Each structure stands twice: as structure tokens, then as C-alpha cells.
């Protein structure tokens, strides 16, 4: 089998599974549906591993699958670019997807939409693979929108829940706001480069580095800045960056497996991947990079704060995801693309793990998601407990664990960055370390330690109340714990194993481009003396102690003195209210944009269409004709002598007129 066939198999195998389970799911039944989809993703994973080895051997590929459209010299194509960045993403996507597929057997076992769910997650895997394997902007946009579609379908999976179908519409529309910028960015690329093919665009970029465009009179903008910011607006939607972050917490209305797969590990990182892929363009605009860094810093810090006050286990993890995506974005801004992608990878494993573990807890406590009504689960669910602990430790950056290497390097990269906004961003990510540790372990302690409060849950909300509410929690079946263990391994070790080749070796080679005037990676490399030395050295650095302080404080607050956080909450009720209300972004958007658009639409319709156009002009002219015709009708009396008289007058008038002429 040649490599091109293998490339095709990677996305098509999950697509095949999705089609079979989606169209014939009812015919072939539940187990055949999950077998065919899992097999599809497994094939895809194995093929990705083979391709990865091939790429490691130095074989990259850039070629066309088919030509979508030809317009004269312009060819728009569907094709693959297979290099180290792509293969890394392929491995992450197919591995996490495979784990989530297996996990779903356990998590969704009682759900009537079982086959549909498998079809969707396989379709998602296909779309995500098309996105990362693309060699051009068109297909990138295709994958971009396709993952958005599947996300929409999955957030609204339980379509009778009002909150779910609100959340999925919101997610789609907020993403569309991002896509609005994205497509304009693509349009500028096409207009100025004359092609949408990555390789050609990247090769031509340096020539256009000084090109300016005039968006409004007398204000020339650097073309690369405009393209960079517009494309990044797309990333802000997809990767839920401030101020387009509002959809991600609500997306937790979807079943937990997809929160792990789509809203933590893969889809939301598409924006990060995209910017890394476009590094040859972004390197040409420091304005765009600064913009990225500011947005990332705001997201990293302020979304982290929100995690502190959440009581829904999934929402805590969701805000943590937002914050971590902010970290990745900050790294992009610092021109440390490989570090951002490295954090993307480690985060994919430990965050998928945390979500799946949260799902396991949710199963055990009968679909209650409120951490105030959990506690002491450690002894009932040892595997979930230990894997959650690993995930949390990785997340807060414990030395030797995967998250440590990536997060520590991001902080260092920001410190070294020369962008004018780097100082602010540095403080944001530094404080973020403490915040992350605090909310992560607040959740951990409230769930697994302390008093058992799960018998006091006020009601068991969620999609299925199975009627055995109040029973003792017990460990979930192997289809659930198996994936947890499988994800715990990379959460522990992947950072230690891969930091050297990925960041300081030539793994990424030409896939990521960094200009010489942004020497951050180079300087990081000089500071780096091996993974072990880095972990040992960490004990002397600020982030380590900040994380330790976060863990210690949360242990003190939530295990020893729960009265203190309660008192703080009362004392600073305004701040607490602000955090609980998520800085009022939802209220602001729904009032200004959602209501505003309907108000504007309504008044355009009533005033513009109905009153002016129809009322005044269309029906108005009809009425005018009617009035005129009434007037004319008066002359048509039907009496012959009236007509004769009029004729006579007419003849008389004409004759007079002619007489005067001559």
C-alpha cells in the first residue's frame, strides 16, 4: 500500500463508520454500530502511527486529492499536507477519539440515541482530520465549519433539553462570528496571493511583508497584520478566546464524552493549530502577534478566575480549558508556536482525562454534577480517583508530569518575548498558575476527599434518572476506566519524553517557521539542559511555589476550614457575583446582539418593508390609481348626451386651436 492511500484511509475510515452508524444504525443495532465506528477510528489511529513513523523518517507530503474547482489559473483543491505538525495532530486526534469512542460504550449505554452518538463522534473525527491534514485554506475552512457543525449537533444531542438547544445555537452563532473574520482573512489571502495553497502562500509571504492596504482613507494597514488578525478572529471563535469565549462553558450541555473530545482535546485547539500552521504569515506582523498575546493573556487569567466559583464539575473543567487555551494563545503570540502546540498535545491528554474522569464521577453519583454534593469518592472509585489526581497534577504543572513541561516553557517564553505587551502577559500567566492550582484542587478535594455529601443531592438532574438515586457510588465499568488509564499514561510521561525533540530538536523542522528577529525559541534552547534538569530546577522557580500555594490554600479552605471561603464569599459579594455571572458577558451579548438584532430586524420589517415600501409605495400607488380611476369614472356616466356634449366641446376647442395656429 502506498502512502497516499494510507493518507486517504485516515479520514475516510471514520467517515465510513459515521455513515454506516448514522444511516443504518437502527438496522444494524447498537453493538454493530459501535464496533464499526470504533474500528474506523482504530484503523485511522494505526494509519496515523504508520504515517508518523514515515514522517519521522523524513518523508513529508504535499499533494492534491481532487480539484474542487478551476477558474482559469486558479485551482481550488482538496489535498493533504503531511508533515510533523500534521502527524502530531493526527495522532492526538485519533488517539483521544479512540479512547472517547470506547468510553462512550459505558457512558451512553442507556441512551436511546446511542447509534446517532457514535455516528456524530466519528463524523467529528473525520472533520477534524480533514482540518489538520489540509494543505490549503479552503479545506481548512471546510474542516473548520464541519467540526463546528458536529459540535452543534452534539451539544444539542439531548434535543429536548431547553438548555442544550439554547447552548448549541449559541455555540454555532458565536463561532460564526469568528468565521466571519476568518473568511475575510481567507479572502484577503486569495486577493493578494492569488492562491489558497499553503505552500505557495508561505513562499510568497516575505515578498508581501511590506505590502499595505487601505481600509479607510489615509490609514494604511500592513497587509499581514490585517490578514493575521482576521484569521485569528476565526481562531478566537473556535478556540473560545475572550471575548468569543461565551459558548464553551454552555457547551457542557452536551454529553461528557464529547466535552472531552471536542470541547477540550481537539476541536477547540483548532485555532491554536491554525495559527501555528500559519506561522510564516504571523511572523511578519508583530501587531498581530501582540494582539494574539493580549487576547490569550486575558483569556488565561480571567477565565481561570471563573473556574473558582463554579460548582458544576464539568464547568470547572470547562473554565480550566478556556484558561489553558489562553496559555497556548499567549505562547503563539510569543512566537513560540512549537511550545503552544506542545501544550496543545499535553493538554489534550490530561484534559480529556479530567473530563472523562468527571464523566465517570457523574455516572457514579447518578448524573448529579454539583461538586458540593460529592465528596469522599476516593474510596469508592480508586481508578477514577488516581487518574483524576494525575490529570490535576499534570494540569497544575507538577514537575516531571506532562503539563509541567509545556506550561513552564510557555511562561519562560513569554518572559523572553520582546513584544511590548509581554510584561503584562507574563504576570497574567504567572498568576494563572496559582489560580489553576487553586480551582483544580478545590474541585479535586470537594469530589474525592472530605465528607460524603452525595446522599444530600437535592435532585438528580441530567438526562436519565435511573431510579436508583441514593445508592452507594461504585467504580465504573472497564470501558470507562480503561480509557482513563490509557490517557493517564501520556498525562504522566508525554512531556518528559517529548520536550527535547519537539521543542529543541528538529521535529517540527520546516512545519513551523520562526523569524530570526524573534529569538525566543533560541534563547529557551540555551536555558534548557534536559528534561530532568528542568524538573529539578523548577523547585527554585516562582511557578512551582505558586502552584503549591494554590493546592495548599485549597486544601486548607475546603478540607479544614470551609467557613473561610463562605466568609470571603459574603465579604466580597460583589466580586463573587461578578464571577458567578461570568462578568455579565452573556447578559450583555443577549441584550445587545440577540435582542438588538431582533429589534432592528423587526423595525426594518415593519417600518421599511410594510410601512414605507408596501404601505406608501406599492399599495399607495394602487390607491392613487384607484383615486384617479374614480375621477375618470365620473366622466363615464353612460349618458349619450354627456358624451355628445364633451365631443362637441372637444371639436370646438380643436378647431379654435388649429385656427390660431394658421
Amino acid at each position: 500500500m502506498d502512502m497516499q492511500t494510507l493518507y486517504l484511509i485516515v479520514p475516510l475510515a471514520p467517515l465510513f463508520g459515521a455513515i454506516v452508524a448514522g444511516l443504518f444504525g437502527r438496522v444494524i443495532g447498537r453493538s454493530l454500530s459501535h464496533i464499526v465506528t470504533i474500528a474506523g477510528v482504530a484503523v485511522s489511529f494505526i494509519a496515523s502511527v504508520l504515517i508518523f513513523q514515515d514522517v519521522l523518517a523524513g518523508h513529508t507530503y504535499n499533494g492534491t486529492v481532487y480539484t474542487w474547482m478551476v477558474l482559469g489559473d486558479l485551482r481550488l483543491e482538496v489535498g493533504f499536507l503531511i508533515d510533523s505538525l500534521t502527524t502530531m495532530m493526527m495522532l492526538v486526534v485519533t488517539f483521544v477519539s479512540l479512547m472517547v469512542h470506547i468510553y462512550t460504550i459505558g457512558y451512553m449505554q442507556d441512551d436511546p440515541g446511542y447509534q446517532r452518538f457514535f455516528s456524530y463522534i466519528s463524523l467529528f473525527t473525520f472533520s477534524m482530520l480533514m482540518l489538520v491534514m489540509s494543505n490549503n485554506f479552503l479545506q481548512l475552512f471546510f474542516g473548520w465549519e464541519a467540526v463546528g457543525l458536529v459540535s452543534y449537533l452534539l451539544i444539542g444531542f439531548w434535543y429536548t433539553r431547553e438548555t442544550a438547544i439554547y447552548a448549541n445555537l449559541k455555540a454555532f452563532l458565536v463561532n460564526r462570528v469568528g468565521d466571519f473574520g476568518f473568511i475575510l482573512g481567507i479572502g484577503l489571502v486569495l486577493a493578494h496571493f492569488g492562491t489558497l495553497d499553503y505552500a505557495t502562500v508561505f513562499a510568497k509571504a516575505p515578498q508581501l511583508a511590506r505590502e499595505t492596504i487601505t481600509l479607510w482613507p489615509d490609514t494604511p494597514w500592513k497587509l499581514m497584520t490585517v490578514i493575521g488578525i482576521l484569521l485569528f478572529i476565526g481562531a478566537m471563535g473556535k478556540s473560545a478566546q475572550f471575548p468569543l469565549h461565551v459558548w464553551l462553558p454552555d457547551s457542557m450541555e452536551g454529553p461528557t464524552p464529547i466535552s472531552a473530545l471536542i470541547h477540550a482535546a481537539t476541536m477547540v485547539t483548532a485555532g491554536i493549530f491554525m495559527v501555528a500552521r500559519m506561522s510564516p504569515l504571523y511572523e511578519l506582523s508583530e501587531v498581530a502577534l501582540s494582539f494574539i498575546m493580549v487576547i490569550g493573556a486575558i483569556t488565561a487569567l480571567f477565565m481561570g478566575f471563573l473556574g473558582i466559583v463554579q460548582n458544576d464539575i464539568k464547568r470547572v473543567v470547562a473554565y480550566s480549558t478556556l484558561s489553558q487555551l489562553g496559555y497556548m494563545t499567549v505562547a503563539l503570540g510569543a512566537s513560540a508556536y512549537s511550545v503552544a502546540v506542545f501544550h496543545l498535545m499535553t493538554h489534550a491528554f490530561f484534559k480529556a482525562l479530567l473530563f472523562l474522569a468527571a464523566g465517570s464521577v457523574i455516572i457514579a453519583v447518578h448524573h448529579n454534577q454539583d461538586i458540593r454534593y460529592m465528596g469522599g469518592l476516593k474510596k469508592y472509585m480508586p481508578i477514577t480517583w488516581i487518574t483524576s489526581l494525575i490529570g490535576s497534577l499534570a494540569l497544575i504543572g507538577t514537575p516531571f508530569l506532562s503539563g509541567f513541561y509545556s506550561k513552564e516553557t510557555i511562561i519562560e517564553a513569554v518572559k523572553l518575548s520582546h513584544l511590548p505587551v509581554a510584561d503584562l502577559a507574563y504576570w497574567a500567566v504567572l498568576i494563572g498558575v496559582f489560580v489553576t492550582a487553586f480551582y483544580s484542587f478545590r474541585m479535586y478535594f470537594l469530589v474525592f476527599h472530605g465528607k460524603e455529601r452525595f446522599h444530600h443531592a437535592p435532585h438528580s438532574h441530567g438526562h436519565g434518572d435511573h431510579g436508583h438515586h441514593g445508592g452507594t457510588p461504585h467504580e465504573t465499568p472497564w470501558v470507562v476506566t480503561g480509557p482513563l488509564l490509557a490517557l493517564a499514561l501520556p498525562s504522566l510521561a508525554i512531556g518528559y519524553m517529548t520536550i527535547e525533540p519537539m521543542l529543541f530538536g528538529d521535529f517540527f523542522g520546516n512545519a513551523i517557521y520562526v523569524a530570526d528577529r524573534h529569538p525566543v525559541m533560541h534563547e529557551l534552547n540555551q536555558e534548557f539542559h534536559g528534561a530532568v534538569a528542568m524538573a529539578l530546577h523548577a523547585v527554585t522557580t516562582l511557578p512551582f511555589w505558586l502552584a503549591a500555594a494554590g493546592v495548599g490554600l485549597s486544601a486548607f479552605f475546603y478540607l479544614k476550614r470551609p467557613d473561610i471561603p463562605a466568609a470571603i464569599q459574603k465579604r466580597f459579594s460583589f466580586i463573587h457575583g461578578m464571577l458567578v455571572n461570568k462578568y455579565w458577558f452573556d447578559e450583555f451579548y443577549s441584550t445587545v446582539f440577540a435582542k438588538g438584532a431582533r429589534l432592528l430586524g423587526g423595525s426594518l420589517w415593519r417600518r421599511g418593508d410594510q410601512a414605507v415600501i408596501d404601505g406608501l409605495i406599492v399599495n399607495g400607488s394602487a390607491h392613487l390609481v384607484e383615486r384617479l380611476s374614480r375621477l375618470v369614472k365620473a366622466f363615464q356616466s353612460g349618458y349619450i348626451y354627456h358624451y355628445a356634449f364633451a365631443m362637441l366641446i372637444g371639436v370646438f376647442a380643436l378647431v379654435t386651436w388649429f385656427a390660431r395656429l394658421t
Partner: protein
Amino acid sequence: MFGQSILSLVIWVPILAGVAVLATGSDRNAALARWVALAGALLGLIVALPLVSDFNTATSSMQFVEKAAWIPAFNVHYHLGVDGISMPLILLNSFITVLVVIAGWQVIQDKVAQYMAAFLIMSGLINGVFAALDGILFYVFFEGMLIPLYLIVGVWGGPNRVYAAFKFFLYTLLGSLLMLVSMIYLYFQSGGSFDIQTWHATALGMTAQTLMFFAFLLAFGVKVPMWPVHTWLPDAHVEAPTGGSVVLAAITLKVGAYGFLRFILPILPDASHEFAWFVIMLSLIAVAYIGLVALVQADMKKLIAYSSIAHMGFVTLGFFMFNPMGVEGGLVQMISHGFVSAALFLCIGVMYDRLHSRQIKDYGGLVNRMPVFAAFFMLFAMANAGLPATSGFVGEFMVIMAAVKVNFWFAFVAATTLIFGAAYTLWMYKRVVFGSVTNPHVEDMHDVNAREILLLGVLAVCVLAMGLYPRPFTDVMHVSVVDLLAHVAQSKLP
């Protein structure tokens, strides 16, 4: 045997089939009328197929040309021919006609023969519009097609059908009378010819071009319809039966847009350039203003009608970008909108047949009772929102790409459709399909039957195929469009 007269067949087979359907008489023979109509529609599609298989994509000159003297005294000819611009539209029309006949199969129980005949005759006349190369012949077909459509709305329509039919008829007639005046002027200017291609070469002064530009703009703009002469469309849709709405949205709107490419741009190139800003402005208003208006509609048909106006705004916007990407994007959008709007109106028809309401508020939770239908509806809703891999994406994408090249802010306004299009379509979908069943009547609704699955399935295949592989469409159009643009780039001022 018919090799030389394919276009005549394409026009006259449906018309004669329509006459044959009429001959089946009263509703006692309704079943016969339906089968004859289906056979006629299918035959109409089959005779049109050689247009695709024998089409030469390498030339921009007219193909399948037929020419015979018709009214020698005024030099009027029965002159037919197609290029890459008109050929796809004829196919689309012949194809949609088959669907419309099937769509009316069970729903129409009153005056079946007349209903089917009206559609078949209209189909032939519309093919005539797209194939005519003689001004008078074009005008006859152009006006002729209004009559069956007027009857369809006026006879089989809803409670307010007479108002809607009149509004529609007067609106469109008003515009086309000015067009007739322009044509007569062109006849004299061209030295006594009604040949459209001769008109393309006729030199015209700026004043004449300007006056005719606005005359044609009104004639075709009403049909498209462009803002602000669009208000007949929502009314006509609301009152029309499902089949009428399908043809109205999928085909008749395209007649107006086609007029831009066959008349306005090539005959009046200088005025077209001069007043491009005006058309672009109206098109952008259509996209943004109408997008917002669509958001607040409570009636599903009105919502899709407004959505049609916004989507047709992309067509006219693309045409006046004066580059192949824009013009072909507009053409692709026309074809795609033919599929998508037809499908959406059929979807509304499916719901209306069961609940006899088009109000969004009467629905909710449809997916619980009609999962197969919900899946189809989702696909078409996404196509309407311009999701990639559906046909709805292709044209919008091309026009936005073309617009960025001309002026960033044109593209900026046009791209708001990504947000508005998704907002009005998916918000409607949410309220109609998702959620729990609240209306007890929805509880009794049964899922789509085989006939409906056939209709929606065929359109689903078209929507996906065109989205995944639009190349055959642009290949057909490209040479003709490039030639047209080269022609439009040359001044005709004497």
C-alpha cells in the same frame, strides 16, 4: 432525428405535455392526469440531457442554435441557443419540474389536471426564456410564464391569494413594460434587428445606456427580486401552494438574474460600470437588511422567502464584481439556491400537509416524531446557512472572495450572511424541530413517506454533490463568463 432541434424539444415537450394533461379533463381522471404529467416532466428532463452530454465547454459561442424567420416584417426570428450561462439553468428548470409534479401528487386534489398542466406549460416557457436569442421571442416567453404562475398562486393559493397574485403580476408587469420600450429602441438603434447578439454589438450613447439600464434594472430587479422591489415575494410565497413556492424560488427568481447577464451587462456595458455601485449597494442591503428582517419572521414561508432575497443579493453582487469568480459565484449561487430553496419549501410543505400551519410557534419538538424528516431538514438548513460541503457554501464563498478583491468593505457586509444566515435559519430550526413536543397535534405527525423521502433525498444528493464537487458547474460556465466579461470591459460609446 431531433439532433438539430434539442432546444425546441426542451421548450415544446413540456408545453405539449401540459396540453395533453389538460386533455385528461376533470378531476374524475385525476390519477391519469398525474401520470401523464409525470411522464411529460420526465420526458422534458430526458430531452434536455443532451444539452449536458453534447455541450462543448471550450467555446463561448451559442450552441444548439436554431433559427427560423417568425415575423419577417419586423425581422423577428425564432432564434434559440444556449451557452454556459443558460444551459445549467435549463437543466435546473427541467429537473425542478419533475420534483414539483411529484410534490403535488397527493396534496393537490382539486383541479389536478389544470394544476399539473400549469406547471408543465410554465416549465416549457421558462426554458424558452433561457434559450431565446431574439428579443421579442424572449419577451413573449418572459411574459408568458407569468400567466401560469399567476394562476397557480391565484387558484391553488391560500386565503389572501388574490391580493398576492395581483401584487405579483402588477409588480412584474410594470417592470417588463419598460423593458419592451427599451427593446423597441434597441431595434431601431441596431438597424432593425431583434437579435440579442446583434444588440450586444450595437453602439449606444451614455444617455441611452443609462435610461435603458434603469428600465432593464427595474424589469429584472423585480424578478430577482432586489431590495426595495422585493415585497411581492414574501406575499406570493405565503399564498402559493408548495409547488408554486418551489418553482417561484428555484426558477423564476433566476429569470431575473439571468436577464442581468444576457441583457444589462453585455448590451449596456458602460452604464453597467457607471452604475455598478448602485446595484452593489442594493445587493448589500438585500444581504444585511433582509437578513435581519428574516430573523423576526413568524411564518416559515416568509422566513425562507426573505432568506431567498438575501441569497439572491449575492447573485447580483457577484455579477457586478466584473470578475470570473464573482460572476460564476453568482451563477453557482443561482443553481444552489434552486436546490436549497426548493428543498426548504418542500420541507415546509411536508409540515404544512400534516399540521396545516406555517407558523413557527405551532411547532416544536418535531424531531421526536419525525426523525428522518428532521435529518433532511437539518441538511437543508445548514445548506441555507452556507455550510461548506453543501452547495450553499460554494456561491457565497466565491462571491465573498471576489468581493474582497474589489473592495474589502463589500465583502465585509456580504460576509455578515455567515452570521445572519445561520441565525435566522438555525433559530427557526431550533424552534420547529428541537425541544419537547408542546402542541398535541405535533404528537400525531407521522414521519416522511416514501414519496417525500424520494423528493428530499434527490435534492439532498444534489446539495451535497454540488458542495463537494462544484467543478463541473464552473467548467461549463467558465468560458462563457470570461467571454462575457471581456465583452463588458469594452466601451460601446460611439
